[in-house]
């Protein structure tokens, strides 16, 4: 009986639970102290959450691309953040042109659709080219090789953008129609945030329909599961992989437009940090799982927003928001300790 228990849970499990437990107690203690101190009103807590969700929505859109590529190739595509960055530039130049013609003021719906089109085309094209030139020849290489290639692609794209578009920070033109906010109960929600929520929801729905209901979607899933078997069903594996890169690029482009609308800045280095966060979000949700990517993105956004004030401020840590990435990663570790494959991830099983 005891031996049985020992075999099932060795000392590392115990140690892990210990670490997890200590962290949890720490977090709980901080939360209770903060909450009882009454520094923040309910409306402020709700604000934290709304802000976090809006940021999380953008992470989610980027994370979808990460997860698509990971699901199908088992590869961490480090360059995905740069696809997002280039898409934002695409949207930026389109917005500049629209602003110059005055269409941005007069017809914002068409403007935003045009910006989406520009960003999606740029991101998807770059994604397809990167796949074709840099990743496809390495299809059967050991996994670290494409990882390094992706890092190389990331450097290349980042500094290409720096060379082409300059080193400064460019400002996104204002979309007047999206200024202002709507009141929901005690809190105000910015129109741009509403736009992010709607766009994320719509795109997720479309993506879900695409993957689960269409023939191409089935092909993507079959290639993700077993490339050889898919090929034996008549699926063109290369084309299918290119399509999923394109879809990932399209999502990144959409994220670029959202980013432009909400944060109104473009710069060549802006892809790296959101890329890293989106990767984290994808793992948090269970990498390879589409719903997981969205959930992971939203959770990450909320943790980053709420966490510093909730967990740290009570314990008297100065400048807690500086540590928000640290909190995000700690929560990630916690979740992976208790659910080693992410929130919605399947149990890792050896694929036949």
């Amino acid at each position, binding site marked *: 009986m005891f031996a049985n228990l020992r075999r099932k849970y060795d000392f590392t499990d115990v140690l892990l639970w210990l670490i997890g437990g200590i962290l949890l107690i720490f977090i709980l203690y901080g939360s209770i102290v903060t909450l009882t101190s009454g520094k923040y009103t309910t409306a402020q807590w709700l604000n934290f959450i709304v802000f976090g969700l809006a940021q999380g929505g953008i992470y989610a859109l980027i994370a979808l691309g990460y997860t698509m590529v990971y699901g199908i190739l088992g590869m961490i595509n480090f360059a995905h953040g740069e696809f997002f960055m280039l898409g934002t530039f695409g949207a930026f130049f389109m917005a500049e042109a629209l602003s110059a013609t005055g269409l941005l003021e007069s017809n914002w719906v068409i403007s935003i659709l045009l910006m989406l089109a520009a960003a999606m085309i740029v991101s998807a094209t770059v994604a397809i080219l990167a796949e074709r030139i840099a990743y496809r020849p390495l299809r059967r290489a050991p996994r670290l090789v494409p990882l390094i290639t992706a890092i190389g692609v990331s450097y290349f794209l980042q500094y290409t953008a720096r060379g082409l578009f300059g080193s400064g920070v460019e400002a996104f033109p204002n979309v007047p129609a999206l200024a202002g906010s709507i009141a929901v109960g005690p809190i105000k929600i910015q129109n741009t945030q509403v736009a992010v929520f709607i766009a994320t929801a719509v795109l997720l729905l479309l993506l879900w329909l695409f993957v689960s209901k269409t023939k191409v979607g089935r092909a993507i899933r079959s290639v993700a599961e077993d490339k050889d078997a898919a090929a034996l069903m008549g699926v063109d594996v290369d084309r299918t992989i290119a399509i999923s890169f394109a879809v990932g690029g399209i999502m990144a482009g959409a994220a670029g437009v959202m980013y432009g609308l909400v944060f109104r800045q473009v710069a060549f280095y802006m892809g790296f940090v959101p890329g890293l966060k989106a990767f984290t979000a994808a793992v948090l949700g269970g990498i390879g799982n589409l719903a997981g990517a969205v959930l992971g993105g939203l959770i990450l956004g909320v943790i980053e927003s709420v966490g510093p004030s909730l967990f740290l401020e009570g314990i008297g840590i100065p400048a807690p928001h500086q540590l928000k*990435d640290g909190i995000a990663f700690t929560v990630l570790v916690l979740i992976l300790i208790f659910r080693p494959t992410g929130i919605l991830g399947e149990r890792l099983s050896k694929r036949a």
Partner: protein
Amino acid sequence: MQKAKPFRLMDAVRLGLFGGIAAVLIALVGMIEAFNKREVINGVISMSQVMLMAVAFVSAFFAAAQAHKSKPGQTIPAGLIAGAIVGVLVAILALAIVPLNMREVFVNATPRLAKILMPQGMEGIAGAAVLVVGAALVGLLAAVLTYLPGLLRRSILISLVAVVLLALLKDVLLPVIPEGLGDFLYASNGLTLVGAVTSFIVVALIAYFWMRVRPSTSKRIAAMPPAQRRTMSFVVTISFLIVLFLLPAVLGSYLSEVSDLVGFYIIMALGLNVVVGFAGLLDLGYVAFFAIGAYTMAVLTTPELPLVRGYIPQLSFWVALPISVGMALLAGIFLGVPVLKTRGDYLAIITLGFGEIIRLLVLSDALKPGLGGAQGVTGVARPVLGGIVSDTPQEFYYFILISILIAWFITSRLKKSRLGRAWMAVREDEDVAAAMSINLVGYKLLAFATGAALAGLSGAFFGSKLGSMVPASFNVLVSINVLAVLIVGGMGSLPGVVVGAIVLIGLPELLREFNEFRWWVYGIVLVVMMLYRPEGLWPDATRERELLDFEDEPNVDSEDPTGLAPSATIPS
């Protein structure tokens, strides 16, 4: 690996377009303009001209070489076409910049660039025509080259590259070569014409004879009796070491500085090699241990940080060094624990997170009294030997060299030991290794701790050498660069690590004056390396075989995080 199709002239057009796009990109990212002022040969040819010519040359060369293989009659036209197309694209860009006002989008598309792209003093259609003809001539040259015997062709190519490198590294080489030679080779801007021609001939001759002699020499070495061979390798090693020890005297302070930096990365990469290469655990947060080593050194030896000084007396470098390594080692064990239960990419993200957490903690206002926060720590101690403070790059070179030798010794011993074999087993198949009653927990922890300790060693010297530290030096790019050094050098191979560090850390460092283009080229180099030489520059002998087989490996979906396990048995 595609099925060989007969060459068509369309292929030359394609290669030409590819080269043309590359040339346009090079111009638009600003490289052409930036290099316009520098000359390869003083008064004869500028760096930017060489660059454009190189693009035309390379595309034409590939086109001609392809044609030469299957349809020798088309070699010359292939070269001409590919070269000319590159010229056409560049000419189009030069003509389009001003009328299209391309500057609205591309910051470097200035009228000045248009002028630079055109042949000197020409403009409009005439300039464009000359450009195209010139590019076609370069293509012709490349095509002619394909007719030469292989050895000669390669010597010429190598020596062309060497001459350009010589010109590029002028600032670095000039201070370390004798004055007479310097005057002979270099003019105020670029090489002298005589110097360029001479060095071209000398390098070509050396390359030619080296390549002719090498096969027979290596055969002769292989034919030697083992005892003699061992003596020889011993002699070679010893003389190599002697050269290494004499090097700083020749190198001067800047090249020693670069060597030091390369050295930090060699130590780290040797450590990471244990984690990733031997044990197969993908660690993306390796910088954490480097930071811990550096910060331990800093906090223990700085005269500042009154809070810390209240508890711990100020230590000397030599006392702090083992403590720094020990702290990193402990952190390795601590991080090892959550790592034990995760595999593959989950492991990668946890380690990455750990690296970021460490950086954020040293940066944070919360720990500022103890770690200096954003202001960092200054006044870190330098090693003192016999009453003399070592603070020049040359002196540090020796400490780092000795550290590398120690790290090398440890890791090469480990590799051959029982432990090394156990790691190999873990890497290849965790479940089988566990079934063979290999203690996974212990072995993984050991791998992590060894890697961490070496990073800590590197960090301690890094901190001491800088004398002043800010958290920004410990970002995730360091981890990524160390990993790249490892892969580009050749995973699992100790000499590979050295070569990788020289290429990826040393070269960009030498090209510091080329600013942001360094990283652009770095990215291209990484991609090209992985496409054409995924096994690394100096691969591990056994590993190379495994990696070369990957094309046909039937089972690629294994759970092995590094994918470096040898192929499973052939199914049938």
